[in-house]
């Protein structure tokens, strides 16, 4: 405590005004006066008395200085001094300062931008929830693209059996219609287990979450919790909202709570507008009875690990429980039963499943850009240090310690870096939003609330300081180790930086070139991979296709009426001018939603634990024709495949080849959706999850037999798809004037969403690569130009001795060429080793693609030599007479 008090007083002492200084002088004066009086009383003469008093005091100024050191904090005081001095030096060289700050701002800005994304996705996966580090996502096998899900009865058994989790929640994500007074509005809702808000420790802003009783009786819990944004937007922030009745899919629900403002659901990047208990599944969704059907796996599961339980332990326990269920209920568990448990930063439910690969990769690349910027600024400092040699030599010879000189130079570097960091944060405030710009406007509830927060600010500060140390330490230690005598004896400007320094700057340039080559190769690979993905034919033609959806369930249609509606609509659409063909599907290829069926295949015996979950879609008549997916064999669904005719199915080529090799798939039977269907057609395989994926088996079921109330309508049109949107809406409204039409979009835009990450990575790595190219060019130009200027006199002598202009050109270019070649060689070696870490993000292209490597090396070499050519030309123009007289 005493220490702290003293320290605070000393901190205050830094800013004391003249009052304390006057006080100190007065005290010294009084001390001397008292002593002199004493001495005179002992018989000394006044002069002698004064002299003796001064001797025993040990000098007035010395005492004052020691006193001042104790009064303030000397270390801090010199730091302030250094800062003020550094500020003056930087202001005196505005050109250098601006260049350095700009370079650093770009380097640091690249890092803070990517970090801000990581911060708001991987590090804060569920805003509004507490202690998300303990929360994990639980899947039943599956992949990141298609995490396997659980049935409600299984969920209940797992929840009852587990000891690894302090809470286990299940939920489903679905579109809902908010009906009632106004125009119906489409919302994205989650029907959740009643413990949902408790497991995530989300305290409602108003009212309550759900209670255990709301998990018990099917249809018995008509309550809802609103998203804060929905409450504000749709209900004007009504403080008396609790207890009000709203209509979801035409069914009355009582509002019991409003979620806190930050909370948007538990899937990163996806926004949930409203929550209802899962017991209301029959009221909000058509179709099967998921509350009781153990075979219908529709629920995502997330849980909070009990204290001290590791993911491995939890996985072990869940696998055991799952095996037990599979033995108990073999009929509904012949699919994938291995449990996967993922921490939220790489949870497959939501955007992190994709981000966790791409963002750290971008971060690493941004780090490289920053290193490059450091090398550039270090070189600038080295060049500038030559003109400051005399200043530093004088300070050293006046008795400044080398540590003190070095500290002062480092303070200058850190000031530069902090200025760069400040500009970088300004850049970040803008650039952080660009992540959202990569997602095309879509009706899918993508919500990436990315704001640079305090963590980003602190990270920016830390990065800046470290950056300042990195680029400052070399030049500073060089300057501090100068021999002052040698320098002061030098004639001004007659000697260049000396051999050691030349070697250091050359090494820095080689490192710069090598790093830029690495960055450019990475950029080239990403861009090539992206181009390839764009050029790849996804297996269907997404151009000129309009998509839209509607939901007949909330409008009160039975499946019988719904089928009739669909048939009539398709007939209407195909009759419209400009619409070439039209069909329907419950999910589309490369859309963001997916269906998976657990299937049995006639004549195929699955191996133990073999996953028989197969991606599927229910599609209308003429779907393949409309999508322009070629039919390999048999026929596709027609309007004659009705609920009262034979149950039929189509498979893709990959499914046929994998499960029925060397057999005719036509006529085989397949078990899905609880019944057997006969295969009548084989379609060519296309991309379903993302461009350039591995071929995967796919099953088509007829929409007119396996009914869904909320299909997607697809129409191939002549011209701009969206210009046909009103016509399509009109056709629907002619059948039912009150039916809301949602999600009107062009299929091409939906497909674009599927390649968002590639575009994101391609764009940013490309931009980083460009930045690297500029930095490297400026770097090599600076070094060659500087060394050529330093050698002006030498060149003059050479020319006077008979060297012609071409020899001079060769001399300067030769130096540049050597550096360039060394840089390129090192860079190629580095790239060969390092690019393989990118391979998981490069689709369809080798991480050592020779074309990319060759082109990039050639480009960089060419640009580097170009940068050397300018100084070489200037050197050629040297007049020996002038050069020799140059001092």
């Amino acid at each position, binding site marked *: 405590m*005493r*220490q702290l*008090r*003293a320290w605070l*007083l*000393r901190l205050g002492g830094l800013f004391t005004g003249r009052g304390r200084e006057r*006080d100190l002088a*007065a*005290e010294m004066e*009084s*001390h001397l*006066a*008292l*002593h002199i*009086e*004493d001495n005179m009383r002992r018989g000394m003469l006044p002069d002698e008395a004064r002299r003796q008093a001064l001797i*025993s*005091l*040990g*000098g007035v100024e*010395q*005492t004052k200085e*020691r*006193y001042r*050191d*104790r*009064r303030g904090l000397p270390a801090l005081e010199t730091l302030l001094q250094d800062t003020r001095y550094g500020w003056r030096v930087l202001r005196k060289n505005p050109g250098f300062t601006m260049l350095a700050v700009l370079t650093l701002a770009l380097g640091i800005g690249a890092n803070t931008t990517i970090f801000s994304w990581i911060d708001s996705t991987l590090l804060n996966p569920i805003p509004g929830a507490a202690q998300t580090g303990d929360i994990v996502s639980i899947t039943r096998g599956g992949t990141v693209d298609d995490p396997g899900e659980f049935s409600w009865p299984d969920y209940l058994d797992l929840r009852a059996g587990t000891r690894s989790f302090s809470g286990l929640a299940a939920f489903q994500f679905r579109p809902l219609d908010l009906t009632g007074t106004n125009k119906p509005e489409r919302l994205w809702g989650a029907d959740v287990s009643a413990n949902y808000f408790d497991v995530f420790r989300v305290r409602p802003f108003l009212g309550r979450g759900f209670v255990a009783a709301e998990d018990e009786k099917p249809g018995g819990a008509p309550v809802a919790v609103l998203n804060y944004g929905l409450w504000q937007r749709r209900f004007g922030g009504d403080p008396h909202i609790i207890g009000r009745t709203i209509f979801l899919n035409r069914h009355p629900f009582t509002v019991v709570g409003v979620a806190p403002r930050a909370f948007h659901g538990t899937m990163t990047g996806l926004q949930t507008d409203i929550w209802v208990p899962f017991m209301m599944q029959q009221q909000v969704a058509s179709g099967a009875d998921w509350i009781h059907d153990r075979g219908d796996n529709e629920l995502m599961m997330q849980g909070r690990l009990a204290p001290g339980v590791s993911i491995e332990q939890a996985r072990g326990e869940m696998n055991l429980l799952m095996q037990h269920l599979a033995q108990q209920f073999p009929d509904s568990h012949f699919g994938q039963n291995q449990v996967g448990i993922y921490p939220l930063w790489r949870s497959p439910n939501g955007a992190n499943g994709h981000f966790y690969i791409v963002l750290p990769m971008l971060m690493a690349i941004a780090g490289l850009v920053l290193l490059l910027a450091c090398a550039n600024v270090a070189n600038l400092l080295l060049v500038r240090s030559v003109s400051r040699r005399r200043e530093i030599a004088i300070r050293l010879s006046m008795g400044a310690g080398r540590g003190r000189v070095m500290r002062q130079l480092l303070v200058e570097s850190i000031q530069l870096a902090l200025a760069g960091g400040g500009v970088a944060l300004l850049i970040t405030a803008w650039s952080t939003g660009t992540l959202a710009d990569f997602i095309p406007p879509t009706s899918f509830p993508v919500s990436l609330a990315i704001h640079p927060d305090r963590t980003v600010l602190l990270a920016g500060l830390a990065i800046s300081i470290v950056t300042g140390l990195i680029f400052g330490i070399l030049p500073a230690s060089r300057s501090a180790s100068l021999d002052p005598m040698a320098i002061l004896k030098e004639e001004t400007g007659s000697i260049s930086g000396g051999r050691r320094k030349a070697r250091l700057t050359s090494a820095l340039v080689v490192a710069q070139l090598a790093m830029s080559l690495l960055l450019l190769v990475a950029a080239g690979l990403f861009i090539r991979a992206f181009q390839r993905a764009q050029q790849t034919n996804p297996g269907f033609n997404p151009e000129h296709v309009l998509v839209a959806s509607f939901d007949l369930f909330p409008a009160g249609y039975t499946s019988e009426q719904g089928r009739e509606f669909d048939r009539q609509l398709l007939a209407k659409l195909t009759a419209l001018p400009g619409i070439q063909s039209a069909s329907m599907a419950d999910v589309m290829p490369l859309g963001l939603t997916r269906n998976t069926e657990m299937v049995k295949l006639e004549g195929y015996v699955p191996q133990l634990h073999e996953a028989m979950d197969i991606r599927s879609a229910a599609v209308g008549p003429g779907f393949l024709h409309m999508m322009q997916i070629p039919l390999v064999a048999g026929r596709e669904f027609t309007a004659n495949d009705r609920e009262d005719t034979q149950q039929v199915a189509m498979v893709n080529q990959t499914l046929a080849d994998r499960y029925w090799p060397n057999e005719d798939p036509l006529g085989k039977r397949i078990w899905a959706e609880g019944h057997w269907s006969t295969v009548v057609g084989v379609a060519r395989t296309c991309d379903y999850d993302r461009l350039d994926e591995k071929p995967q088996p796919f099953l088509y079921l007829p929409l007119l037999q396996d009914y869904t109330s909320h299909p997607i309508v697809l129409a191939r049109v002549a011209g701009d798809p969206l210009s046909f949107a009103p016509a399509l809406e009109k056709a629907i409204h002619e059948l039912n004037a009150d039916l809301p039409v949602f999600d009107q979009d062009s299929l091409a835009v939906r497909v674009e969403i599927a390649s968002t990450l590639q575009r994101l990575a391609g764009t940013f790595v490309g931009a980083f690569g460009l930045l690297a190219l500029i930095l490297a060019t400026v770097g090599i130009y600076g070094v060659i130009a500087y060394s050529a200027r330093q050698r002006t006199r030498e060149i003059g002598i050479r020319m006077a001795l008979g060297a012609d202009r071409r020899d001079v050109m060769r001399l300067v270019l030769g130096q540049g060429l050597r550096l360039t070649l060394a840089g390129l060689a090192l860079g190629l070696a580095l790239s060969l080793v390092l690019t393989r870490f990118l391979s998981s993000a490069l689709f369809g292209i080798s991480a050592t693609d020779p074309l990319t490597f060759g082109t990039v090396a050639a480009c960089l070499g060419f640009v580097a030599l170009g940068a050397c050519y300018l100084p070489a030309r200037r050197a050629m123009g040297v007049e020996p007479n002038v050069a020799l007289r140059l001092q």
Partner: protein
Amino acid sequence: MREKADVWQGTLALMILKTLEGMGALHGYGIARRIEQTSGDRLSVNYGTIYPALLKLEQEGYIGSEWGVSDNKRKAKYYHLTRAGRKQVEREARDWQRTTAILDRFLAPEEQS
């Protein structure tokens, strides 16, 4: 060098506190003289070193200071013990005695030989 200075700083602080305890309020010169006299003129250091030590004690809250007038009508800054300072004198003195007692045991046999 530094260790020596630290020891000196520590002992000087105790000497100052002890002097103020015995003499009441006193100015810097008076304290320095008093310490010199008490040590039997065996301790001759620069009077100047006393001022940073006084400042340190003041910052730590063991002593206070105010301007006053000396017996011979000179303006001088007078230092006095605070309550915390009184306690500190006892504590420091105890610690110091313990330290010297231990050190004596180490040093005694050598002096005999």
